[in-house]
């Protein structure tokens, strides 16, 4: 079968250049619009569009769009106030924009043929490492050298201090990776699964009529999995922001 070739289910995550310019300026300049960049621009436009169009223009009676926006604002605001503290609403804009970036990145990746921005290691790990560095700088600027007491749990015997500092340091550094890998792995796993299953289902549907009718049963399960993916998109965006909140709390309050 010469016409039968299946692309790798991971090929959907490949970052490819859509349009680019190579110019002999500043050494060798290469300006490229990749599918990652294009879909990041889409996320920005969708987030901006939702907030501009969904805005209620200070009307007394809210519409369905502004209710959804106000609800998400209220939940994120209460999350920040519960996690970081009532005096720490200065971090709300950051958490709010982070949540909507990841949420839209996850949600638009569920549209067939689109690109999953958050399934790129460079985006999710880049985000988590940047946040980790930022949170550490914040903690150092607030607490100075006292920040290092974070690595020694209270009531530790002096003999155990070197060991515990090592363990705490490793667990602190692991945050930078675990935050990004959690998001990345969830999205990659979900999209790969859907791609593999849809390839099988396509083959089954394009067989005889009887097989196509019987295939409706696994297709129903496939549809349920799509619902699960949409739920994962929401949950992962929420978990990411919740953990960033808890890291910020550690930086602001130390323990």
């Amino acid at each position, binding site marked *: 079968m010469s016409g039968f070739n299946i692309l790798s289910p991971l090929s959907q995550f490949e970052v490819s250049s859509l349009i680019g310019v190579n110019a002999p300026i500043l050494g060798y300049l290469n300006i490229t619009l990749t599918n990652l960049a294009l879909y990041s621009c*889409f996320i920005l436009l*969708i987030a901006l569009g939702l907030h501009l*169009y969904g805005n209620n223009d200070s009307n007394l009676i809210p*519409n369905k769009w502004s209710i959804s926006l106000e609800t998400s604002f209220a939940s994120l605001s209460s999350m920040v106030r519960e996690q970081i503290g009532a005096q720490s609403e200065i971090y709300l804009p950051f958490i709010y924009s982070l949540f909507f970036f990841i949420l839209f990145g996850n949600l638009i990746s569920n549209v067939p043929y689109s690109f999953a921005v958050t399934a790129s290691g460079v985006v999710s790990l880049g985000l988590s490492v940047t946040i980790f560095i930022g949170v550490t700088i914040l903690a150092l600027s607030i607490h100075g050298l006292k920040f290092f007491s974070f690595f020694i749990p209270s009531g530790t015997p002096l003999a155990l201090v070197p060991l515990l500092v090592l363990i705490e340091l490793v667990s602190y550094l692991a945050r930078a990776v675990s935050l990004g890998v959690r998001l990345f792995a969830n999205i990659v796993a979900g999209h790969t699964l859907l791609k593999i299953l849809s390839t099988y289902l396509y083959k089954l549907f394009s067989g005889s009529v009887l097989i196509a009718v019987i295939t409706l049963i696994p297709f129903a399960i496939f549809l349920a999995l799509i619902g699960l993916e949409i739920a994962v998109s929401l949950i992962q965006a929420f978990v990411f922001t919740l953990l960033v909140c808890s890291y910020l709390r550690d930086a602001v309050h130390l323990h």
Partner: protein
Amino acid sequence: MHASLVRRQLQGLIPPKIATPKLVSGDAGTGLGPLVEFYSKLPKGRVTPRVSGIKGRYFSGENASGKPIVALIVGLFAIGYTLDYNMHLKHHKNHAH
């Protein structure tokens, strides 16, 4: 205290004479004429929502609907499919089946 001074101080408490029984019911409601005329000119029926632009048509007030989400999904699908097809053609430029 002077009587006029008392009256002036009480003026804020006494309401002005606008609709006395005589004014309203005397001479077959002549006093109500301007009032009736004003209200009869007002538009009747339900308030129609002001429709202008994308926001007015799909987002504001009672017009809020899920159509923009459907449009977004269809648009993303079309863009994604076009890009995918284009990449597929590029792929086959150098690799035959």
